[in-house]
């Protein structure tokens, strides 16, 4: 259960576009939410999945900067990297995102920090993929049923109807 039921994350996976949009509100001003996105000591406290250890090689969050980090678990390592296209303090971060396990895939992620007043912020993250397949792959990543297995199961389900 969530302790912050008053502002749960909402998701929009637009059927017409290869995008994923996440919106979440925080009880902190934009400057603080922004800081937690650019300072590596803060980033590694929350960005990695809970069950994985996150290690940051590079986190140079400024326009033209880059990042690289690794998640580790018993099964192995998952490495991610990208460029910071634009870092506008307290307002907006635009970056690329690639998982090394699928080097042809890259998404463009835009995070905006909207000031809601009273020390609150609405964070909106839009990821644009190069295809709907790429988006679907990202949606199904880290799931017990990955996208390939998912499509296979879907095929099975569909073929039993014929």
């Amino acid at each position, binding site marked *: 259960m*969530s*302790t*912050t039921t008053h502002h*749960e*994350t*909402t*998701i929009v*996976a*637009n*059927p*017409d576009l290869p995008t*994923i949009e*996440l919106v*979440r509100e*925080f*009880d*902190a001003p934009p400057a*603080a*939410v922004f*800081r*937690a996105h650019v300072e590596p000591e*803060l980033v590694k*406290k*929350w*960005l990695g*999945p*809970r069950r994985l250890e996150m290690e940051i090689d590079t986190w140079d969050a400024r326009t033209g900067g880059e990042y690289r980090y690794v998640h580790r678990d018993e099964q192995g390592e998952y490495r991610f990297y990208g460029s910071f296209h634009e870092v506008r303090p307290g307002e907006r971060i635009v970056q690329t995102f690639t998982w090394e396990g699928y080097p042809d895939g890259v998404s463009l992620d835009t995070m905006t920090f909207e000031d809601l007043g009273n020390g609150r912020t609405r*964070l909106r993250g839009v990821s644009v993929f190069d295809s*709907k*397949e790429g988006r*679907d792959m*990202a*949606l*199904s990543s*880290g*799931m017990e*049923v990955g*996208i*390939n297995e*998912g*499509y296979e*199961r*879907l*095929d099975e*389900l*569909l073929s039993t*109807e014929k």
Partner: protein
Amino acid sequence: MEDRLSRVFAALADPIRRDMVARLAVADATVNELAEPYAVTVQAVSKHLKVLEDAGLVSRSRQAQRRPVHLEAEVFDLMTKWIERYRREAEQRYQRLDAVLAEMADEQQTQTLEEDAS
């Protein structure tokens, strides 16, 4: 890789088709029954049904004379499961960010108090 999920998304992009799915979630229905509330022809509704069928969201009985349309809840669930799981992972991440932000606020308060004291 065949793009099933995109086909499901595309099928659900249309408001009439979303409405049809919502109604089929309650009970099976014939094409005529489905067409009733809309200001479109039965032919147009049949076209919408074909899109839903191709996406694997609905099926039509070959046997029964009425050929009622049936919602494939399992296919529908699989897709929404992926999206919900992704959302939940993001929510867990953001709950950790909540904790980081609370820590930051505490630190700042302590700092301000120390500055006031000195």
